[in-house]
């Protein structure tokens, strides 16, 4: 297996993404965990870019890193309290819970990896010529085949916007 620059880039992005993801699971302090989470999303965006889906890569950054992760950090800062700084570690079954969680995750990874490695039809190399996602084609695809889902997504986003604002709205007391 000979590594080219492009292959090295893929490994770098993958290591960044997975490393940041591992850090989210391990870092105790919520703000730091959320920040490495943002880094993980940046890495996923880089992987999209590497695969040639420029449009989706930047959408990923715009939505996940620029909006979702910022919101997450923001909510963490809002819900920060001096006394409730860390997470509740103890509990009677803390050790059991960690072991169980790790076990389930590892078992699932084992199953997925076995499935991926087991199917020979997946052993496909990257097409030689770089593939570029054309937004014109994407637009046509959306308008031609996906109009009902498109409208539905619009409705979902609008409902989420209104719902989110309504939920987060603070009832202001008259004297406050």
């Amino acid at each position: 297996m000979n590594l080219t620059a492009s292959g090295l880039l893929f490994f770098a992005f993958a290591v960044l993404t997975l490393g940041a993801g591992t850090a989210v699971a391990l870092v105790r302090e919520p703000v730091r965990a959320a920040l490495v989470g943002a880094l993980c999303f940046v890495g996923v965006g880089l992987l999209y870019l590497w695969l040639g889906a420029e449009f989706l890569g930047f959408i990923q950054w715009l939505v996940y890193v620029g909006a979702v992760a910022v919101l997450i950090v923001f909510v963490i800062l809002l819900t920060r309290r001096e006394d409730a700084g860390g997470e509740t570690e103890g509990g009677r079954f803390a050790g059991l819970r960690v072991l169980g969680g790790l076990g389930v995750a590892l078992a699932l990874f084992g199953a997925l990896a076995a499935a991926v490695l087991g199917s020979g039809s997946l052993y496909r190399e990257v097409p030689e010529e770089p593939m570029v996602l054309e937004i014109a084609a994407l637009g046509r695809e959306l308008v031609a085949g996906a109009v009902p889902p498109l409208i539905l997504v619009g409705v979902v986003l609008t409902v989420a916007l209104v719902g989110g604002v309504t939920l987060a709205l603070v009832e202001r007391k008259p004297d406050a």
Partner: protein
Amino acid sequence: MITLQLVLLVSSALFCLGLAIVLLRRNAIIMLIGIEVMLAAANLNFIAFWRYGAEPGSLTGVVFALFSIAVAAAEAAVGLALILLVYRHFRTIDPGRLPVAHD
């Protein structure tokens, strides 16, 4: 060189990381990050199949990933609003500490 298998392995690992985050952390917000990581891993699969797919012209994978990102954004917005609401009521975002409704 990089094969489809390798990309799928990375996305599987990412998905399991997301699952591990949800299972290991006791902070509702961090658990939400875990869910988003799992969604991102699924999207990575879709885009990998678009890139390595039998039909290069077909954009179904990309379209699906696009919808998935949109829905994930909506989910995050509502989820975080709910977490804020829970925090205002109970002063904690640890799901384990929330009072449970008994029958």
